[in-house]
């Protein structure tokens, strides 16, 4: 019986403290201030696990050199196909009306400006006839079709409505020293 009383009084003490603290905060702070603090706390908590990654991505933009319409451009070290930058797109964007393939092959290219190696994704732009301009075929790290994640020989127009091949872009996925 005594134990139950002690527990009840404990609960009462916690309730009373919470009520008093709330009343005190309500007197001191506006509702907007409270919400803004709460929001900051939630956002901070959500962003916390991403900090090392976002810091490395935000560190700097990629320093560029070279002509994106030339096969010698550093990003094209494992490129195969028509360069989209010559077809109405850019080195990272597909020409109008085409569909970017979500599936790609990868390569590792050396950026001569910062001396770092970057993991590249080569995505085909699909759904139109072959562009045919600025044909480029480089084979740094290229592997045969049975090892297709790094094989440029494959038509990579998968997961799109029309699977005809138009041209290819090159996206930086990250640096290999990250």
């Amino acid at each position, binding site marked *: 019986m005594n134990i139950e009383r002690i527990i009840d009084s404990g609960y009462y003490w916690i309730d009373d403290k919470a009520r008093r603290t709330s009343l005190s905060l309500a007197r001191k702070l506006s509702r907007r201030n409270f919400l803004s603090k709460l929001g900051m706390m939630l956002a901070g908590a959500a962003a916390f696990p991403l900090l090392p990654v976002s810091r490395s991505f935000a560190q700097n933009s990629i320093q560029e050199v070279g002509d994106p319409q030339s096969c010698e451009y550093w990003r094209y070290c494992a490129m195969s196909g028509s360069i989209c930058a010559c077809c109405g797109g850019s080195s990272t964007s597909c020409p109008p009306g085409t569909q970017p393939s979500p599936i790609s092959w990868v390569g590792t290219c050396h950026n001569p400006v910062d001396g770092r190696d970057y993991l590249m994704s080569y995505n085909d732009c699909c759904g139109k006839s072959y562009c045919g301009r600025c044909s480029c075929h480089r084979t740094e790290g290229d592997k*045969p079709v049975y090892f297709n994640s790094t094989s440029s020989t494959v038509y990579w127009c998968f997961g799109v409505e029309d699977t005809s091949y138009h041209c290819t872009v090159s996206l930086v996925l990250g640096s290999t020293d990250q």
Partner: protein
Amino acid sequence: MRIITAMALGLTLASPLLFGQIAPEQISVETMPAPGTNWFISKTGGSARVFDAETGEMHGLLSLSDWTPAVTMWNPSKEFYAAESYFARGIRGERTDMVAIYDYDNLRPIAEVIIPNHMARLGVRAHLALLNNGRHLAVHNMNPGHSVTIVDVQDRVFVYEISTPGCAVNMAVGQNDFLQICGDGTLQLIQLDLSGFEQNRERSEMFFNVQEDAVFDRAAKTANGWLLLSHTGLLFEVSTDDDEILIEEAWNIPGAADIGWRPGGRGEFLSVHHDSGLLYVAMHEGGVDTHHDRGTEIWVVDLNSRRLLRRMEMESEVGTLLVTQEDNPKLLVQPFGGEGGGTQIYNALTFVLERSIQAPGAQMFEDF
């Protein structure tokens, strides 16, 4: 009126005399003569021409889809088989993959077997394989995972699709089996039953490292099995004995590594004459990652004595090559980009250039 009628009648009767006795010619259509020695198929992006290498004459043409990987023939059935892929509106619209069957006499399609729209659509000879005495056709798929479609070309039905993750290049062996090269450095043997369904699957020991020295995804049929080739020029003779995969000890293309030469190309760049055991391979001077550089020479290697017999200097880079399987074999060479006056026909034993054939756009040859 009587005079006009009489004149018209007279002209009609006299016309044969006026124009001599030549009967007007009637248009006709040829049918294919019986195939002769050293006939071959020259495949382009959307067609396949039939040539006689002895005379240089063209005998006819198969119309194929732009995406056809290869075309093959089974002599006893007098039929050609091609895997094809079409879009309903040319380059867009609904896609339909199929195996098309062409008759020999007219080179016209006589049957179609619709298959899953997973065909790899790459110009690779080993993406088609005829098995079981010409009954089953294996078509390679990439979606993007690897698989193989089996079609019964006798009954004209799709049998089923075999999943072959990480493995490609279909090399027919035994009665109804095929070998594949896998990314983990092994070979995979798939054995089919008489209906074309998978009965057994075996995997070899690892015999190459894809990162250090990958084996090409082009292979050459030999008398007993297949010849595989690595980027640095290592040769592997492989075969099967029922469900056992046999891989002979590797050896180098004689003399190549010493002087910095490697095999390579983007088309079919190696071929073996089965009876003599002579290998014809396109070679270039280059280092790491030059495996797609086209050959400037063709090297002839005797697989029996493992000796280099000849280095044939080419005027143009080699686009594709094939040696026919006759007693007096011909070496067919397509210079890259149509340079060099068309398809070159060499005597494959004396290495003498016999003739050039105009064959625009030739990408791959097939013997039959």
